[in-house]
């Protein structure tokens, strides 16, 4: 049973006059975040492929992962709305591929899409904040299940762990200049179809049953946390990893299903 908050955790005008750049991806979290920030008064620019349905004040194609292209993206936004006050990057991703089968090209492509993109966009954002002597907020989203490593997720885990590390280093480097960086770790949430839901269906279990709180999260709950973390009300929260997963990661026990070597269920070429 979902208990979806229909209103906002911050006053409606909290982001009035603020420009938020959302580097999104198709899925419920990008949509809900865009909707929530607009409702809270932000001018919302979304950039990414396949985001035509995402509510925004300006929709831009996905920028190439290259310093010039990323800088150009900020230039375009600034030319229309003025300086960017908040940067949100939604890269909730999980995989299901045996490590030995991950091709170098795919490794490079995903790292570019996640780690390189976040590094380039985050550092470009910070430089522009410093240049105008103003602060800003960066919020990064990744899949909770892969943060600490997960079989079949060498790629996604390495990227998510890199994000978790970046927010800590950036916090110490930039917070004194009022550029704040945080992270949301997204668990099982309605409307996010990924390898986890695929795996649940292959194993014949309902993903809901795997969550201690006995329900999936909602994208609106993720958006509510995003609003709070990037608002002035969370000004003292920096370098934080806010996990929204209904307690899914805490399921330690001495039993569990018999261990199957991951390559037996990942369809590895080595089986």
């Amino acid at each position, binding site marked *: 049973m979902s208990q979806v908050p229909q209103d906002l955790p911050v006053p409606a005008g909290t982001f009035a006059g603020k420009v938020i750049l959302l580097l999104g991806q198709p899925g419920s979290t990008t949509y809900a975040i865009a909707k929530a920030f607009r409702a809270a008064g932000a001018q919302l620019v979304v950039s990414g492929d396949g985001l035509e349905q995402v509510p925004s004040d300006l929709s831009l194609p996905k920028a190439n992962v290259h310093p010039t292209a990323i800088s150009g993206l900020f230039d375009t936004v600034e030319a229309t709305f003025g300086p960017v006050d908040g940067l949100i990057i939604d890269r909730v991703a999980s995989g299901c591929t045996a490590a030995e089968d991950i091709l170098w090209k795919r490794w490079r492509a995903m790292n570019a899409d996640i780690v390189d993109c976040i590094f380039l966009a985050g550092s470009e954002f910070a430089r522009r904040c410093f240049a105008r002597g103003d602060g800003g907020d960066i919020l990064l989203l990744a899949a909770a299940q892969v943060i600490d490593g997960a079989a079949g997720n060498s790629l996604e885990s390495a990227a998510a762990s890199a994000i978790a590390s970046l927010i800590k280093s950036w916090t*110490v480097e930039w917070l004194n200049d009022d550029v704040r960086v945080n992270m949301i770790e997204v668990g099982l949430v309605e409307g996010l179809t990924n390898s986890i839901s695929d795996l649940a269906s292959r194993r014949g279990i309902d993903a809901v049953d795997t969550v*201690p709180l006995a*329900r999936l999260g909602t994208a609106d709950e993720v958006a*509510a946390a995003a609003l709070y973390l990037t608002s002035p009300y*969370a000004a003292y929260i920096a370098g934080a990893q806010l996990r*929204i997963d209904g*307690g899914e*990661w805490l399921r330690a026990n001495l039993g569990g299903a018999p261990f199957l070597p991951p390559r037996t269920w990942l369809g590895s070429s080595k089986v």
Partner: protein
Amino acid sequence: MLPADEFAGKVVLVTGGGSGVGLAMARGFALCGARIAIASRNEETLAEGAAELHGLGAEVFTVQCDVRQRNQVTDMFTQIEEATGPVDFLLNNAGSNFPALAENLSVNAWRAITQIALDGTFFCSQEFHARRCRVGRAGAIINNLASYAWTGFPGDVHSAAAKAGTLNLTLSLATEWARDQIRVNSIVVGTYPHSRVPNNDPREREGRRGRTVPAGRALRAQELGWAAAFLCSRFGGYITGLNLVVDGGDWLRRDLLKPPFIPPRERKDLWFGQ
């Protein structure tokens, strides 16, 4: 921050709620319409805290309790229920602390700190859970933590060990009680100078201590209230087992080269490393 009626009709119990961090968190709930119960061993502290909360227009109930005593915890909940109705949210904030070298810590001193923070948190949580289950209602717990729960803290081994235990309680109870719809989270409280912290001067909130934090200032009372209220609200309904660090980046201040190490027993000021 939250809608003004977010907690209308709800009751929050804040142990150690008469002053400091507990009172700061209580204010956050008072501003969102909750009825507030504050507990403390000290009657004077309770009176001062209640006066402040009354000033915000809140309905306040005070109760004296030593959370180390299991029977007193039961009595406390009964008194609050009779006065205000069942407790919806529990903020485990009761604690005490003082600088001491481990080798000089007496058995009584060790027990005083660990029993308030760890035993007290467990007793209150257990009683809260039982009563929520009895009425078949959801609830939320917030445990007050410090980053030394996982970093350790020379000169504060008693509190650090107790907080580490409390962090673990957050994780275990979040899972044990999830199907009862009891969410359990922690808030790591950063530099928050107030009158009950040894060697801290609240007047220096933006001064000496604040300058040691990447955020460039100390924590403000309302920021604690907002964080606790958010986690207990509908908006935090899918969050459990979280340890939310509200410290202005303080615990992340690793450096490749740190200042020269002064062994704890050679320090003039044990906690401040000098």
